[in-house]
């Protein structure tokens, strides 16, 4: 097959796949991403699906999407707007047209663009009949019809309903043409997926070629894209979601602590994959306990921690609320416990499948009594691994519960992640006690870190009792003594505060010596904030970024950094929780805010507009 058309080399391209939630859009997106990764492109993906499993077909509510951005330089976000939109039905077109660049290529399945589908999608007029699609490169491909015909010709006895499930391979074939890809790579993916069902593999491969050949035939796709591999990038990479990276980071933490991992958890969107991934890792000694509810999830983990395991629980906002009392118990018993909270839109059930950063206050303060618990946050899908490992390290070495915040955007999004070298990761030092240690007392502390020590059932000569009632300093007897209580409250606080001595200093991207504007973000907004700041710096703006991963306690140099900039703007996917927190911790600085609460990540363009405004308002 030869190509006669024009090939455009691009830095990056954003492709959005959209269809019914049963159409396999996530699979198609992943297949395309994987093919891109194997060619050496960098990438970032983001699925966008409704919380209903199969909302009514053809309706806007049922549209499931998958966005991928591939590039030949570092790709930090899945991109604001799409260069290519694949819309398998009118509803998919309707709900996604606003996220498409002017002049973009839009591929529709013309076989689904009829009055019946327009009605379901809520179109009053035929969108193909008015001028709403003017200015786009519209490809009206008969995807359903050609897929069915291709399958029928194979005479495999496959019915139309099953044949329709091959449509995503038609799309894939089209895209392989559009991006100058080797069609053999796509074939391999199908063989891996349908290896055990040869007739389905055959049908899907035939349709894949059908899509490719169709693209070659029609003139509309004479312009194709070329994304070259990333230069000077070497090593082993894999596509990873934030949830899998989190699960693996916990396993890595257990390995480096010489402990077995125990996860007590209850399924909740968008955190469930952590439980799923870990339940499949018994080969590494991981025990998972799918509890009857969120409370039992965390309580079983606390029980496991008491017996000397690296214990964790995974949840999302509503689940964290249910676990609050237990977190207080883990705090007062000073047991290591990693709590992963994959944030989603709230309050209450809120927006289960959409990202938000609105659990920060809950993580910091959402418990009864004086109950300080350290909080850290991951900022890319891949570095969920690192921060899950860090959470494990801090929990064990400081004998404390810790909350790791990620979000739905990191959890389900992927990036091409460079594999860490386990030999280079630090050992986690467990504050264990030797059997029969005559000096052991339940609340005797390490003089530096102030952690108590981890004596576990089964050890001789260390029998002791802990619990939710206040305990006497050192000896750990039940105590209602007023001065003892104050002392213990202060000791627990001081222990958490001193964690600041054991975390890295905050870094700044941009003008480290100070300057006009410091953008402050935390957690999952890193990609968008960094891209926006980078693009503006390349255009000469005096703008820098401090993205926080260590939230509580804050890195010790935070105030020093803030003092060097004329203006600070705190950007968050919530109504201003981190800025409120910073005002309480470091009240000497003025914090402007940029907040978005739409269940959507930041877009680079909107950030740049805001930053420009602040810079110009001198």
């Amino acid at each position, binding site marked *: 097959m030869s190509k006669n058309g024009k090939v455009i080399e691009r830095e990056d391209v954003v492709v959005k796949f959209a269809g019914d939630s049963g159409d396999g859009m996530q699979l198609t997106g992943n297949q395309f991403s994987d093919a891109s990764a194997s060619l050496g492109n960098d990438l970032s993906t983001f699925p966008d699906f409704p919380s209903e499993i199969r909302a009514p077909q053809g309706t806007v509510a049922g549209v499931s999407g998958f966005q991928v951005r591939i590039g030949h330089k570092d790709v930090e976000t899945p991109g604001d707007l799409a260069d290519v939109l694949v819309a398998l039905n009118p509803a998919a077109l309707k709900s996604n047209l606003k996220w498409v660049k002017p002049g973009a290529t839009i591929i529709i399945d013309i076989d689904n663009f009829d009055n019946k589908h327009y009605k379901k999608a809520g179109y009053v007029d035929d969108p193909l009949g008015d001028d709403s699609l003017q200015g786009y490169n519209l490809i009206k491909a008969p995807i359903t019809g050609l897929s069915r015909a291709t399958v029928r010709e194979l005479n495999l006895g496959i019915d139309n309903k099953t044949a329709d499930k091959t449509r995503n391979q038609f799309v894939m074939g089209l895209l392989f043409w559009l991006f100058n890809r080797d069609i053999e790579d796509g074939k391999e993916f199908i063989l891996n997926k349908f290896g055990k069902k040869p007739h389905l593999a055959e049908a899907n491969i035939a349709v894949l070629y059908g899509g490719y050949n169709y693209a070659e035939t029609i003139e509309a796709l004479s312009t194709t894209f070329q994304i070259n591999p990333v230069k000077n990038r070497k090593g*082993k*990479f894999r596509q990873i979601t934030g949830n899998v990276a989190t699960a*693996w980071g916990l396993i890595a933490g257990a390995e480096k602590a010489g402990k077995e991992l125990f996860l007590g958890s209850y399924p909740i969107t968008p955190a469930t994959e952590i439980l799923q991934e870990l339940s499949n890792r018994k080969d590494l000694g991981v025990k998972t306990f799918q509890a009857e509810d969120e409370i039992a999830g965390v309580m079983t983990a606390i029980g*496991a921690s008491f017996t000397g395991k690296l214990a964790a629980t995974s949840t999302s906002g509503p689940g964290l609320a249910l676990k609050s009392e237990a977190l207080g118990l883990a705090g007062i018993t000073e047991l290591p416990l990693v709590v992963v909270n994959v944030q989603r839109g709230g309050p209450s059930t809120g927006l289960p499948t959409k990202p938000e950063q609105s659990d920060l206050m809950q993580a910091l303060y959402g418990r009864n009594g004086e109950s300080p618990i350290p909080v850290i946050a991951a900022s890319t899908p891949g570095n969920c691994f690192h921060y899950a490992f860090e959470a494990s390290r801090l929990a064990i070495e400081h004998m404390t519960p810790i909350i790791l915040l990620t979000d739905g955007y990191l959890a389900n999004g992927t990036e091409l992640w460079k594999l860490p070298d386990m030999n280079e990761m630090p050992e986690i030092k467990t504050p264990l006690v030797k059997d029969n240690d005559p000096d052991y007392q339940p609340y005797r502390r390490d003089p530096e870190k102030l952690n108590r020590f981890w004596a576990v059932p089964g050890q001789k000569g260390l029998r002791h009792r802990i619990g*939710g009632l206040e305990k006497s300093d050192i000896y750990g*007897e039940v105590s209602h003594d007023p001065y003892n209580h104050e002392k213990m409250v202060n000791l627990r606080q001081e222990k958490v505060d001193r964690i600041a001595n054991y975390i890295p200093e905050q870094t700044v991207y941009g003008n480290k010596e100070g300057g006009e504007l410091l953008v402050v973000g935390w957690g999952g907004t890193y990609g968008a904030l960094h891209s926006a700041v980078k693009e503006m710096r390349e255009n000469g703006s005096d703008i820098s970024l401090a993205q926080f991963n260590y939230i509580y306690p804050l890195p010790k140099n935070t105030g020093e950094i803030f003092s060097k900039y004329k203006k600070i703007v705190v950007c968050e996917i919530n109504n201003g929780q981190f800025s409120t927190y910073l005002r309480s911790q470091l009240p000497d600085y003025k914090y402007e805010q940029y907040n978005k609460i739409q269940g959507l990540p930041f877009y680079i363009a909107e950030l740049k507009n805001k930053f420009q405004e602040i810079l110009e308002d001198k």
Partner: protein
Amino acid sequence: MENTHKLTKKDFVVDGPVKWCAGCGGFSILSAVQNALPEINVPIEDIVFVSGIGCSSRFPYYIETYGFHGLHGRAAALASGMKSANPKLSVWQITGDGDAMAIGGNHFIHLIRRNIDINVLLFNNKIYGLTKGQYSPTTPKGSVTKTSPHGTIENPFNPGELTMGAQGTFFARVIDKEPKVMKEVFIEAHKHKGTSIVEILQNCVIFNNDVHEQVTGKEVKDDRTIYLEHGKQMIFGKERNKGLVLNKGYNLEVVTIGENGITEDDLLVHNAYDPNPNLHYMLGRMTYPDFPVAVGVIRSVKDTTYEVMLEEQVEHEKANSKIKNMTDLLNSGNVHVIE
């Protein structure tokens, strides 16, 4: 240094005071537990007492083993985590009727359904003691308490019914005034592999004094309770002349030996090991005045336990997977090597 000597009751007695009300049923239960533990042949350091919240849940502070005083209602979950994480431990859960049946009802039934090898001692005094006298989920209907000044309008739970309903493998009932029976039943509970529920009819001297007296009082006990022993006939009464049979409607019926041609041979023989729970269910729910209240081990059947199956799955996967460590996992599946 830890003991190597043979354990005695003294090894389980704490230095500090036991802070229950004078006359509380808790004291005799504690003593029976301390008498039972030296006989279960478990090293003292492998024994853990776990509790929720309530008067009974202070228990871990009063026994010289590892102990964890947890959250209200959550002892079952805490204990489940411990036993699943380390099956070697002998885990004992102390709970009350409010802790286990109300706020912890969900964890209670799920513990039983999973059949994790935990010994649950359920102190049932049919009242909230630590909050000073509100009705509990086991308080008889119509009872006047601080929160039911006009009598409760709720049907009470019977722990035995809940246990059978949740597919329990072990249920026993004992009376706090009978130290020998308690000790023996606690040892039986330990021996049973799976969740053992032991309901203890406990007196609350302050807020529900003599709650069980109409059944367990010295004068009436023989006629109003029946002590069930595996393999023995279901016979009771001061005169040992009453017993239980199944009537034509497949219901339990109290009969008198010598009346209507009934002989001892007509009485039911207790089979605690019968996997079919139907008769155990009927025996567990017998209440005064229609029936004698059943005490002793009512059900004890073998089944797989959660923690053992979990361990087996882990060992199987460890032995059969190619992935032996984190580095193997990182390099598994779809890795792109870029040169």
